[in-house]
């Protein structure tokens, strides 16, 4: 570890990032300018700092010039800060003596058409960072232990799969399900796709295995009523919804697999105006014998119509803009399966999204069996009217034949949207999860981290993450389990040291910070007289709200101290670098 009392010896590395930065910013001149900044001992530019070559360069120069601070001017720290921190640690520079300047997202990518000004901005930012780097301090690397127990919230197909995988891997599971039985939506369906198994046939073995496994403790008819703590050490309260009895458990990781709800499309296609207009979910919940019986009078269904995209793909309608992914395939399968027992079966659609393995095949099968597919215009949906005598009349324009059509079905099946369950907001708040436009939970990164979240230690899986089919939910579940086990298998995990700290001598016990902290990370240390505020570092996210709120200036933000920030402001405003103390560098 470098001694932070030493003279700072700063190395500056300016990245071209191929043409991403260098195409706009004159990186060579930025590196040249940096050479003359106070405390800078070495400065260069390099094609790709994140590549092996770039990383080796940092290590070599740290050794060669005895650098004790490193500034890399490149992409966003969100991209490569962990990479560069690891690199400097390998040559014994504390990771908090590293600073990254964003010349890409903050300069070249947003000022593409103004290269001269962009270069000036780049120089400003590097100058500021160098000033800050001189003030950076060593911070200790801390770890917390991770309890070898996972809580799985939601006992549908995803929750069951996660629970089993984790238990089989040798860790304990607490499975919390709000319903009185396990199985979620899949258990309710008699009909699945792409194969002919029923929901019960698929979910039955999973439920049996989960019940049997000695590592899994199940809480039915229960919800999480309190969730506190931090990664590896969550304190959970599980409340039984009938008895109100509370159970407290300590767990290491969480998987949220709370599934979805099938949208009840009131206001669409006369839903609720006739018992013979049902949703696809309602159809799939009927026992096979009942599927082709008219709910209104028990007569056999001879003519049926499926209508797609009900409550999905509606631009501008919050929560209904997304594609519900499973319905085109589910509809094709249901239509094909039921065709032999009816006289006519129609599918009214906008697009046919039978994208998955085996899906196109039963789309073809449905057509082969004479299911009639008819496309309606996006701006002129079918009109469904229910007459006084209960007769249903559908009228629409078949775009592809150019014909006005009319049909009087016995049964209308609306492929309605997959939407979040009604207590989604509550769940989000409980686990500090954010939600995307579709209403489901936001993953940490939609492409490369679809199963983790910004709440460390909390994973998401299945429909809780986005509309999907049961097979995809199972894959998510095993994936989320892998993430949870990854944390638990190590037994401990590093936490950020960029946290806040209360200088107890200055604390006036006003409690302002306790209330201000959005993460509930600050408590009063009752053992002191008077009690002073104390930051639980593992829960602190380093947001700085407490420090800003404290009327006594008693709170220090490690790695973002007042001095570190003010020196950046000074560096920005004073364009000619002034060595400290007035002497030469």
């Amino acid at each position, binding site marked *: 570890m470098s001694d932070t009392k030493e003279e700072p010896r700063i190395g500056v590395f300016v990245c071209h990032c191929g043409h991403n930065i260098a195409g706009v910013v004159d990186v060579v001149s930025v590196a040249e300018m940096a050479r003359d900044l106070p405390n800078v001992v070495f400065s260069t530019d390099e094609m790709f700092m994140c590549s092996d070559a770039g990383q080796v360069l940092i290590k070599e120069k740290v050794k060669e010039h005895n650098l004790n601070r490193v500034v890399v001017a490149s992409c966003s720290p969100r991209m490569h800060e962990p990479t560069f921190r690891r690199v400097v640690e390998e040559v014994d520079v504390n990771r908090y003596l590293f600073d990254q300047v964003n010349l890409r997202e903050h300069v070249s990518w947003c000022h593409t058409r103004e290269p001269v000004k962009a270069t000036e901005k780049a120089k400003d930012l590097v100058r500021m960072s160098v000033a800050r780097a001189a003030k950076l301090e060593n911070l200790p690397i801390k770890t917390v232990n991770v309890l070898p127990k996972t809580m799985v919230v939601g006992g549908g197909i995803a929750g069951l799969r996660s629970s089993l995988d984790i238990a089989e891997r040798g860790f304990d599971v607490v499975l919390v399900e709000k319903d009185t039985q396990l199985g979620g939506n899949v258990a309710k369906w008699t009909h699945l796709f792409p194969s002919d198994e029923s929901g019960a046939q698929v979910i039955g073995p999973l439920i049996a295995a989960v019940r049997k496994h000695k590592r899994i403790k199940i809480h039915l008819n229960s919800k999480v009523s309190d969730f506190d703590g931090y990664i590896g050490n969550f304190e959970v309260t599980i409340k039984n919804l009938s008895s109100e009895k509370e159970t407290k458990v300590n767990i290491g990781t969480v998987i949220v697999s709370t599934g979805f709800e099938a949208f009840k499309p009131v206001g669409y296609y006369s839903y609720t105006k006739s018992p013979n207009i049902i949703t696809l979910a309602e159809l799939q919940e009927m026992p096979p014998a009942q599927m082709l019986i008219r709910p209104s009078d028990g007569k056999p269904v001879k003519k049926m119509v499926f209508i797609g995209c009900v409550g999905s793909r509606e631009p501008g309608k919050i929560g209904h803009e997304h594609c519900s992914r499973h319905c085109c395939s589910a509809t094709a399968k249901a239509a094909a399966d039921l065709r032999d027992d009816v006289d006519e079966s129609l599918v009214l659609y906008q697009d*046919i999204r039978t994208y998955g393995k085996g899906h196109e095949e039963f789309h073809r099968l449905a*057509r082969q069996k004479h299911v009639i597919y008819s496309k309606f215009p996006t701006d002129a949906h079918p009109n469904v009217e229910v007459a006084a005598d209960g007769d249903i009349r559908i009228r629409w324009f078949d775009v592809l034949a150019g*014909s006005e059509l009319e049909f009087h079905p016995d049964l209308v099946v609306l492929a309605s949207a997959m939407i979040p369950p009604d207590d989604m907001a509550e769940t989000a708040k409980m686990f500090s999860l954010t939600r995307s436009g579709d209403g489901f939970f936001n993953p940490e990164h939609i492409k490369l981290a679809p199963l983790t979240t910004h709440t460390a230690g909390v994973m998401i899986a299945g429909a809780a993450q986005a509309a999907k089919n049961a097979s995809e939910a199972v894959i998510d579940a095993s994936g989320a389990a892998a993430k949870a086990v990854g944390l638990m298998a190590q037994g401990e995990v590093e936490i950020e040291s960029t946290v806040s700290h209360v200088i107890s001598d200055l604390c006036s016990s006003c409690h302002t910070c306790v209330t201000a902290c959005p993460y509930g990370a600050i408590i009063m240390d009752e053992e002191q007289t008077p009690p002073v505020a104390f930051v639980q570092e593992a829960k602190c996210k380093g947001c700085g709200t407490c420090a800003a709120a404290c009327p006594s200036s008693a709170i220090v933000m490690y790695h973002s101290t007042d001095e570190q920030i003010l020196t950046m402001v000074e560096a920005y405003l004073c364009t000619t670098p002034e060595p400290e103390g007035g002497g030469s560098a």
Partner: protein
Amino acid sequence: MTKNEVKEKPAVSHTPSSDFAKEVEQEYGGEGIMKCIQCGMCTASCMVASMTDRYRPRQLIQKILLGKREEVLTSDLPWLCMTCRLCEERCQEDVNLSEIFHAVREIAAREGHIPKVFQSTVDQVLEDGWLLKDAYSDFIEEDREDLGLDTDLNWNDEFVKKVKKRYLSGGNKK
């Protein structure tokens, strides 16, 4: 028909039915009609479609699939297919349109719906044995003589007699 044309007609609604498609499917050549996903590859390839706005093989297939029996059988559209097979060559669902339209023609013919133009052509062949009797002028006969070609082209009479005997009066009906 284009969408505009449809709008000009009174909006008489049709009730979809799979009966006609089933009928076509039963007819030799019509088996694959159900496979069509209406992508438009056929129409974009079609020579006839590029020459006339009213012929859209894809749309015709959809009309069959919707059960517009009367409209399709009384239309001359199924008869416009040149059987060049370019659509069949390219169709990604392996729909044999030419075969299907032929099957439709069979059904149409059985019910007496043959476009006048086709009917008169066939009548001409059955009567003369060939299409060009009226065009076989003296000048052409002389030219043929000069070139040393046979001027008596009535050998087709025999053929016609055979056809009539076999297919139109007793004999084996197809």
